[in-house]
C-alpha cells in the first residue's frame, strides 16, 4: 500500500490553518447522532473525550485503571514545552520546530512537528483556564524553566508534578462532560479487539475487568490513546498496567506500526536491586545540573564510593563530551552509562549502576542550597534505597521510558484503517527517533485538545449519511468470540510458570539485544529466542482463576502475549534500519569515536510495518519517505 501522509499544501506556517479552513465539519444538531469511542484516559484520551463531548458528540471513554485520573500521564515530572516566549529570549514556534526536529534526529515529519509547536501556544492558555497551578513569578505571571537540548526557557511546570496537574485538568474536563451525559465512562475496562466493518473501524470489544464480562461497543470512529509500551522491557519507568495490547490488536487488524524499536532509555533512574524488582523509579533529569556522573577507573572496584580517591574516578561524560558534560542529551548519556557498565565498571551490588555525585556541588554551594533545589528527590531516594545521598553518591542507571514508535498515522492522526485514530504516545508522529524533554505532555495535549477534534470531525462528516453499524453486525460477534477464545485458551494452558516469569525473561532479552545498543547478530539471536520463549509461554504458562471474574493474572497474560509479538517486530525494525539515529544505536554504524552515524541517503524514511496475516511470517516493511523542505538534516553534536 502506498502511504499517503496527506500533508496539506502551502507554506509550513500555513499548513495547519489551511487544513482547518478546508476540513469538513459536522452541524451541531447532527453531532449527537455520532458516537466516538476513545480508549485511554491519559492526557491525550481525556482531553480528546472532553473536547468532543463539549462539541456535542456521544463519547464512550475507556480505561483499564479504576479511575481515569490514574492514567500514567500522571507520573510525568518535568514540564510541558510551549513557544510562548514569555522570557523574551528569542523563542518562537519556528525555533521550537527546529529544536524538536533536530532532537528527533530528522526522523519526523516537518509538518507534524511544526503543528505541534504551533498548537503549544493555545495549550498553556487552556490549562491555565482549567485551573492548572503552574509555577508563577512573584509578579503573578507564568514562570518557565529550561530543559535539556534547547537554548531557551520554554518549559512550563507545576513543581515536579506537571503531568499530574495537566492530567487532573483534563480529567476534570472529562468528568464535567460525564456529568453532562455527553461522555460515558467505562473504567476498569480493557480493549480486546477493534471491530472492522467494510474496512472501517466501527467499534471495540472490551472486557469489564471487575466482572470479567466481554462487551461489544459500536461507534462511528475509534480513537486509541493508549500510551506507550515501554513496559515491554518489564523493568521500565512505566506503570505496571501500561501495555501495547490495543495498538497491537489494531495492528493485527490492519493498522501499520511505525518504528516500534525507537524507545527512549532514560539515563537517571534508580538501578535494579534484585530479581523481585517490578519497576524502575525515575529520578528527575534536573539532578544532572548539579550532580557529576562517574564510575571507578578500576574494574571490579570493591571500595565504597567515598573511599575511592579523585584520581581513580572516571567522569566519563565530562571526558567524552566536554562541551555538554553531565548535561548531554538522554540517549547519549544513557548509552555512555551502558558502555561503562558493560565494560565492567558498573557499581552497586549488581554492578549495574553509575554514581551521580553531589559532593562537589555540596562543597561549592552548601548543603542547604542543594536541599532547596532537590530536597524532595533526595528524600524520595532515601525512601526507596535507604541511602542518604547527601553523604554518599546516588547510584543511577538507564531505564526504558518512552516509545517514540507507535501506530502509523497520517497528518490527520488517522491510522491506515479508516475511522481508527491514534493520538498521544500511541502514535509515532512527532518525536522522530528521540524525544526532547517536556515534549511528551505537549504532544499528548495538542493531539487531544486541538488536533484530533478537527480531523475526527472531518472524517465523521462523511459518516453521517451512511447506515449505522450496530453491535448486531456479525463482525462484532465474530471479534468477541475470537477474543473470548483467546482468553479461554490461555486459561487452558495450566502450565507451571507465572506470567511474570515470561515477562521478565522477555524484558531482559529485549534490553540486552534491542535496547540502548543493537547489532545484527544480537537482533537475530533475540528474534529466535523470543520465538522460543513464545512457544514456552503457550505451553507452560500458569494462569489461575477464571474468565468470568476479576483476574489480574489473565489481564497480564493477555498483555504479555501481545508483548511477545511486539518484541519480534521491534527486533525486525531495528534489524532493517542499518544506521544509527536518535535512540536507535546500531553498533555497526558508529563513527570512530563511538558516536551515532546516521545514513540519510538510504534511511530517511519511516518504517511502517504491515501485519502479514499471521505471526509465523515475517512482517512487511512499507516506507514513508521523509522530505525536508525547510530544514536540512545536520549531524547532532554535543562534543
Amino acid at each position, binding site marked *: 500500500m502506498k502511504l499517503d501522509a496527506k500533508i496539506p499544501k502551502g507554506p509550513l506556517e500555513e499548513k495547519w490553518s489551511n487544513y482547518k479552513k478546508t476540513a469538513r465539519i459536522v452541524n451541531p444538531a447532527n453531532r449527537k447522532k455520532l458516537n466516538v469511542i476513545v480508549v485511554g484516559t491519559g492526557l491525550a484520551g481525556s482531553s480528546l473525550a*472532553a*473536547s468532543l463531548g*463539549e462539541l456535542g458528540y456521544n463519547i464512550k471513554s475507556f480505561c483499564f*485503571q*479504576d*479511575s*481515569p485520573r*490514574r492514567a*500514567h500521564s*500522571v*507520573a510525568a515530572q518535568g514540564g510541558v514545552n510551549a513557544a*510562548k516566549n*514569555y522570557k523574551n529570549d528569542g523563542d518562537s514556534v519556528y525555533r521550537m520546530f527546529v529544536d524538536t526536529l533536530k532532537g528527533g534526529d530528522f526522523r519526523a515529519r516537518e509538518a507534524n512537528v511544526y503543528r505541534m509547536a504551533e498548537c503549544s501556544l*493555545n495549550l*498553556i*492558555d*487552556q*490549562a*491555565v*483556564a482549567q*485551573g492548572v*497551578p*503552574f509555577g*508563577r513569578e*512573584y509578579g*503573578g505571571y*507564568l514562570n518557565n524553566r529550561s530543559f535539556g537540548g534547547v537554548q531557551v526557557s520554554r518549559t512550563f511546570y*507545576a*513543581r515536579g*508534578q506537571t503531568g*499530574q*496537574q495537566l492530567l487532573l485538568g483534563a480529567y*476534570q474536563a472529562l*468528568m464535567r462532560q*460525564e456529568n453532562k451525559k455527553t461522555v460515558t*465512562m467505562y*473504567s476498569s475496562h480493557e480493549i480486546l479487539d477493534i471491530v472492522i466493518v467494510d474496512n472501517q473501524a466501527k467499534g471495540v470489544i472490551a472486557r469489564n475487568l*471487575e466482572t470479567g464480562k466481554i462487551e461489544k461497543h459500536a461507534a462511528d470512529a475509534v480513537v486509541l490513546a493508549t500510551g506507550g509500551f515501554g513496559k515491554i522491557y518489564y523493568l521500565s*519507568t512505566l*506503570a*505496571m498496567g501500561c501495555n501495547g495490547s490495543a495498538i497491537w490488536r489494531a495492528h493485527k487488524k490492519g493498522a501499520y506500526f511505525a518504528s516500534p524499536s525507537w524507545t527512549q532509555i532514560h539515563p537517571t533512574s534508580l538501578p535494579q536491586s*534484585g530479581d*523481585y*524488582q*517490578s*519497576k524502575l*523509579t525515575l529520578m528527575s533529569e534536573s539532578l544532572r545540573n548539579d550532580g557529576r556522573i562517574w564510575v571507578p577507573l578500576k574494574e571490579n572496584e570493591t571500595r565504597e564510593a567515598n573511599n575511592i580517591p579523585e584520581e581513580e574516578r572516571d567522569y566519563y561524560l565530562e571526558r567524552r563530551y566536554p562541551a555538554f558534560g553531565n548535561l548531554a542529551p538522554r540517549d547519549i548519556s544513557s548509552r555512555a552509562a551502558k558502555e561503562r557498565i558493560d565494560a565492567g565498571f558498573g557499581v552497586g551490588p549488581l554492578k549495574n549502576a553509575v554514581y551521580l555525585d553531589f559532593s562537589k556541588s555540596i562543597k561549592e554551594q552548601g548543603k542547604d542550597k542543594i536541599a532547596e533545589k532537590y530536597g524532595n528527590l533526595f528524600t*524520595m531516594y532515601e*525512601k526507596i*534505597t*535507604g541511602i542518604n545521598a547527601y553523604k554518599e553518591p546516588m547510584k543511577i542507571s538507564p531505564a526504558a521510558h518512552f516509545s517514540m514508535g507507535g501506530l502509523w498515522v497520517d497528518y490527520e492522526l488517522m491510522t491506515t484503517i479508516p475511522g481508527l485514530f491514534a493520538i498521544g504516545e500511541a502514535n509515532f508522529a512527532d518525536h522522530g527517533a528521540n524525544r526532547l524533554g517536556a515534549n511528551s505532555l505537549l504532544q499528548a495535549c495538542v493531539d487531544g*485538545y486541538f488536533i484530533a477534534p478537527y480531523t475526527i470531525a472531518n472524517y465523521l462528516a462523511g459518516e453521517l449519511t451512511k447506515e449505522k453499524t450496530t453491535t448486531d453486525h456479525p463482525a462484532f460477534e465474530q471479534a468477541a468470540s475470537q477474543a473470548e477464545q483467546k482468553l479461554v485458551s490461555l486459561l487452558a494452558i495450566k502450565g507451571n510458570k*507465572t506470567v*511474570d516469569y515470561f515477562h521478565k525473561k522477555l524484558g531482559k532479552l529485549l534490553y540486552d539485544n534491542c535496547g540502548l545498543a543493537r547489532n545484527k547478530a544480537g537482533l537475530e539471536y533475540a528474534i529466535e529466542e523470543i520465538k522460543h520463549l513464545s512457544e514456552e509461554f503457550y505451553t507452560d504458562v*500458569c494462569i*489461575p*482463576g477464571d474468565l468470568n471474574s*476479576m483476574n*489480574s*493474572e489473565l489481564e497480564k497474560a493477555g498483555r504479555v502475549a501481545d508483548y511477545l509479538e511486539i518484541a519480534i517486530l521491534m527486533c525486525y525494525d531495528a534489524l532493517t534500519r542499518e544506521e544509527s539515529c536518535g535512540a536507535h544505536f546500531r553498533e555497526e554504524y558508529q563513527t570512530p569515536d563511538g558516536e551515532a552515524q546516521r545514513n540519510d541517503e538510504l534511511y530517511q524514511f519511516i518504517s511502517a510495518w504491515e501485519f502479514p496475516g499471521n505471526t509465523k511470517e515475517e512482517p512487511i516493511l512499507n516506507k514513508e519517505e521523509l522530505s525536508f523542505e525547510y530544514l536540512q538534516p545536520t549531524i547532532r553534536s554535543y562534543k
Partner: protein
Amino acid sequence: MKLQLKIWRQVDRNSAGKLESYQLDNVNHHMSFLEMLDTLNEQLITNKERPVEFDHDCREGICGQCGVMINGIAHGPLKNTTTCQLHMREFKDGETILIEPFHGAGFPVKKDLKVDRSAFDRIISSGGFVSVNTGQAPEANSLPVSHETAEQAFDSAACIGCGACVATCKNGSAALFTSAKITQLALLPQSEKERKTRVIDMVNQMDKEGFGHCSNTEACEVECPQGISVLNIARMNYEYNRANFFKHKK
C-alpha cells in the same frame, strides 16, 4: 527475612470476607511492599492457589491506585507515604503483618484488597472542574495569579485520590479529598464564577456517597501521601457558609 501475613480475602462485592494466613520465607528487605505481595502471588500461583488481588499501577507514589491498611494503618507505618513507596526494611524479621483493604460506606470492597473508589470520580464530576470548553481560554498571562496563591493552589491540587484519608478517618469522611479540590479552585481567579455552586454541589455529592462527618481529628493529614493540610477542610466550610449566606433566590 521471614514474614507471617494475614490478608483479607473476599471473592466479590457480595461475599463476606475473612483473614487468611500465609507464610513468606524469602523476603528481601530492599523489596517494596507491593513487590513483597508480588512474591507472595508468585508463590500462590506456583502452588495453584488463587493469587491476592490488590490495586497498584505506577508504583512511584503518584497515581493513587495502591493503598491498603497495613497493621491497621493506612499505607502502613511510614507517614505521608503511599503503599508502593513503603519498603520491607520498615518491618522486622518474623513479624506478622495484617493487610486489609481500605473500606467504608463510600468504599465498597470489590475483591480481596481491591476497593471501589468511584465515589471520588462522582464527587469531581458534580463540580470539581472549571467550566471552560476547549478553545474558550483567554491568553494565559491575562489573569495574573500571585506566586503564593499559585503555590497554595498547588498544595491543594497535589491530592492523588488514593483514599487513605477516608480509610484512616474514624468517621469514614471524604472531607479532605473534597475540600482539597474546592480549595484549589476557590483560590484561583479563573473559576470565581462557579465558586458558590461548586461547593454546594460537591458537598451534596459527598454526602450522597455515604461518607461520614469530618470531626477534625486531623488523622487524614498525617496519613495523606501528599500531606494535604486539614485547613483545606476549614476552607471548604468557609466556602460552604459563604455560598449559603450569599445564595441567590431561585
